């Protein structure tokens, strides 16, 4: 019985997640996110830089603000895109810019790193279809 309750509860949670996923409204056709700087393949001697985030066709709104045709930036570092339809994780590989920032100070250790942007809605859920930038690679020398 307890197990059954757990399954029901889990199903309800999944249902909630699915509902919130469908609430992420699509942005206007042609909207795209892109990394203004650094360039793909750039070598960054110090490993410290300002990442500049670009968005065409839509606007920026802080997290928690429900406004059509807006979203806020998330930076994915050395990871693949998070699953669609659920809030973007918040950890060292998934940075949130819910204050509406369009620049971020990034520090990376020596090595090759990938950087990609994904836009999230008021609840940090990627839009449907998702607005993601090209995944770029930067190199921090030893």
């Amino acid at each position, binding site marked *: 019985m307890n197990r059954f309750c757990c399954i029901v509860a889990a199903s309800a949670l999944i249902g909630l997640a699915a509902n919130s996923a469908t609430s992420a409204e699509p942005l206007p056709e042609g909207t795209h996110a892109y990394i203004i700087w650094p360039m793909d393949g750039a070598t960054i001697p110090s490993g410290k830089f300002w990442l*500049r985030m670009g968005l065409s066709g839509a606007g920026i709104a802080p997290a928690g603000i429900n406004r059509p045709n807006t979203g806020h930036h998330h930076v994915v570092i050395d990871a693949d895109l998070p699953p669609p339809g659920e809030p973007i994780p918040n950890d060292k590989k998934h940075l949130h*810019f819910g204050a509406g920032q*369009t620049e971020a100070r990034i520090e990376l250790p020596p090595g090759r790193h990938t950087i990609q942007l994904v836009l999230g809605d008021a609840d940090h859920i990627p839009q449907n279809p998702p607005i993601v930038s090209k995944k770029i690679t930067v190199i921090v020398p030893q």
Partner: protein
Amino acid sequence: MPATRWLTSIAIGAAVTLPLLTGAHAQVKEATAPAATRATRTPAPADAYVYIGWPNDGEVLHRRRFKIWFGTRNFGVAPAGVTKANTGHHHLLIDTGLPPLDEPIPNDKNHLHFGAGQTETYIELPPGTHTLQLIMGDADHVPHDPPLVSKKITIRVQ
């Protein structure tokens, strides 16, 4: 908020999405009605700043229509009407000086509003020398204190 100020905000709000689509020629003259001044402006952190990412100062453009991107550092972007600390929305000043700092930024062909939270736009300018400058406005389109103003750049359209 006084009624006159509220109405002005609504009028400006209705016009803010025009510049993105139609460039420098979009304007709503009715929105330039003078508004009541405000005693206190929305504070901005001392290290926040705003800049024009492109074009560069002194750029010579060989096309009339071009893209401008807006940069902000240590500060966030929020659509007009959203009151949140350390945020604002961009206004592009074309061929004009700074507006009065204690009232809503005018909305006309020299003062373009980006109240939908845009961080870039396309504009079209006639051949000649032009100046461009950004200024942030708060939820009600009033500049912050201190004002967040970019360097005023000069470009030449050929």
